[in-house]
């Protein structure tokens, strides 16, 4: 039982990431009808917002420390962050420590800007083009974005630690009456789960309770009719795209301390998030979120030693196997709408 709880918890944070990415992807799918292969790259850009922001606030100037020497025997230069100069060493250090949460504020305008530029500059012209063309252009864009990041940050993962206050783990086991150390869960993952819940809730509330959201939901259900009613759906779609980019970016920023960002992390998530969206059902936002958590938790269960011993290799394929079973039993995924992306 305790191991069961452990894996549910692990599935939750994995599922949070899947759900957040799939949410944005299905928004773009459902409202704009665009197959966005650059969505993984947006997640990656979000994670790099955290990297860039923490680099920005730890910008330093060099002073030469004569007492120490570097590997070639020359006097060593030591970096002193400007933050230390401005706020004093202590406050400066804690601002740098809190770089990742602060990067949220930095990433929102950046990602909205990126989303806006992408939609206006590129995606807009592809609404009426075949899906194949959309795939090619967004895949090309994803490669370009990746390569730009690689050119500046290299291919190696870059550690972006969570603030000191959130390192370490919370002992769930004691809380539930088990022995200490049976169910450990890192604080930051808890933060990530609650953060994801808030973002998902905000997106749903926005779509449910605003006029804008109503139009968008109507557009997802029947785009043509909404257009015929004289509503300028395209303008709203730009905002929708920027919002989806922003959700992917936020998912990335907060994910940076969990898995060190590297330039190809977007591609790693891309295929999985497509599977999540489709399993959830095309055009269904609750479906995407539900499928995200479901696949996250199943993936965690499949990696339990007892399960792997029983079925070797199941941890490698569980997501795809489940996807096949669900799609064969439920033709449009868990909560899909008829006629969306079936052509």
């Amino acid at each position, binding site marked *: 039982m305790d191991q069961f709880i452990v894996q549910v918890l692990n599935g939750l944070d994995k599922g949070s990431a899947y759900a957040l990415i799939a949410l944005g992807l299905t928004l773009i799918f459902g409202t704009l009808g665009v197959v966005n292969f650059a969505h993984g790259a947006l997640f990656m850009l979000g994670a790099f917002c955290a990297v860039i922001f923490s680099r920005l606030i730890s910008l330093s100037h060099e002073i030469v420390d004569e007492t120490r020497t570097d590997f070639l025997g020359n006097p060593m230069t030591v970096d002193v962050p400007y933050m230390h100069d401005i706020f004093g060493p202590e406050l400066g250090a804690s601002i740098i420590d809190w770089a990742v949460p602060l990067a949220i504020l930095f990433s929102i305008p950046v990602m909205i800007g990126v989303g806006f530029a992408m939609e206006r500059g590129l995606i807009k012209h592809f609404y009426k083009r075949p899906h194949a063309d959309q795939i090619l*252009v967004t895949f090309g864009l994803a490669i370009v974005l990746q390569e730009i990041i690689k050119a500046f940050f290299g291919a190696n993962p870059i550690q972006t630690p969570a603030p000191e206050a959130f390192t370490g783990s919370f002992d769930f086991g004691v809380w539930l009456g088990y022995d200490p150390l049976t169910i450990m869960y890192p604080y930051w993952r808890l933060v990530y789960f609650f953060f994801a819940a808030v973002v998902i809730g905000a997106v749903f509330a926005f779509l449910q309770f605003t006029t804008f959201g109503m139009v968008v939901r109507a557009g997802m259900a029947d785009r043509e009719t909404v257009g015929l009613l004289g509503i300028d759906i395209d303008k709203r779609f730009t905002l929708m795209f920027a919002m989806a980019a922003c959700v992917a970016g936020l998912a990335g920023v907060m994910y940076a301390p969990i898995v060190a960002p590297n330039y190809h992390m977007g591609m790693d998530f891309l295929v999985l998030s497509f599977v999540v969206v489709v399993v959830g059902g095309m055009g269904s936002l609750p479906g995407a979120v539900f499928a995200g958590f479901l696949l996250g938790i199943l993936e965690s269960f499949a990696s339990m030693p007892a399960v792997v011993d029983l079925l070797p290799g199941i941890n490698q394929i569980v997501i795809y196997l489940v996807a096949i079973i669900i799609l064969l039993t439920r033709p449009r995924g868990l909560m899909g709408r008829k006629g969306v992306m079936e052509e």
Partner: protein
Amino acid sequence: MLGIKGKDLSVFLLVAMLALLAPFLLNPFPVDSAMAQFNAGYPDLMQRFVIFGIFAIGFNILFGLTGYLSFGHAAFLGVGSYAAIWMMKLVSLNIIPGIIMAIIFAALFSVVVGYISLRRSGIYFSILTLAFAQMSYALAYSVLTPITGGETGLQIKPGDDPLLSNLAEGEIGRANLFGLEMGDSAILRAGGWEFTMNVGYYVCALVMLVAFYLAIRIFRSPFGMMLRAVKSNQQRMNYTGLNSRPYTLAAFVISGMYAGLAGGLMVAMDTQVGPERMFWTASGEVVLMTILGGAGTLIGPVLGAGFIKYMENIVSKINSTVLHEWFAFLPDGMEDFLVTIFYPFVGKGWHLTLGLMFMAVVIFLPGGLVEGGQRIASIFRRGKKSGAGDESAKQETPAE
């Protein structure tokens, strides 16, 4: 001639000419000139052009005609490769049995995958095929290591002694066609030029021409018409009382067999298989090749395959030393400046150029590379009235 006529015949003859003269056409620069870097007429790359051409032609039979976008076709290529290498390790170093087994195994696997996946359409179909391919990749990499060799893959080893081949003790077998080894080449030198005519390449080229011919026949047959009907309106087709599933399944299996053939040829040319041949990026690559060249056109996928493989093999090898050589005639400051400008786009930055080219093609040539060719042709044909030529080219593409 041969049951094809008119435009199809001229396209076929054009492809045949290009394939047979490739060693000359792809080596336009003298070997010791600075431009020799762009020569692509060496056996490995020519073989890859043709093999991926076959793969893309087959993919296009499914995607171009029926509109079903498979995202797992690399799995059939991989299965074909594994079948072929086992034939070579166990039965014969002659490439024929290997290639036949590759096609058979790919066909069997695609029947299974196709039968299940074709129960759904649109993106649901794409994800089903993707799921099968990813499972094949993951299992081949890990638990199936005893059969697939895992990460290090399978090669022909000194200990392998195929039943039908007489090998000396410790000799490593080489792929051959009735004694003619795939690695053999005839080298023709003329002036500063050097042309390599490789046995393996011509074997591949002939197979590709047969495959291309069959594809034309399929495109123009009643069966092909039926597949097009599936693409334009499957529902209406079903209402007329026709069951479209057998047709789409047949198309799926045929394109799976093309993939298996490509996989078998890959092993015949270079006796090695690794599981990453089945990774989703490999499936994505053939999708990109087809769209880039022009989905639904006959020659487009071949052009797309050539384009991507050229970028991968030629542009990735241009390093800063080569750049410095190119611009050596310029004053130092100029030289460094130009090298700095070009450097991010070549060598390790070849992916960046590839991504930019994808975007450029799809933005400026909505019908893929084929449309580029049509535009150029129409400029020649109509002289000043090239604007009108563009129009007709655009209209032609979807009909192809």
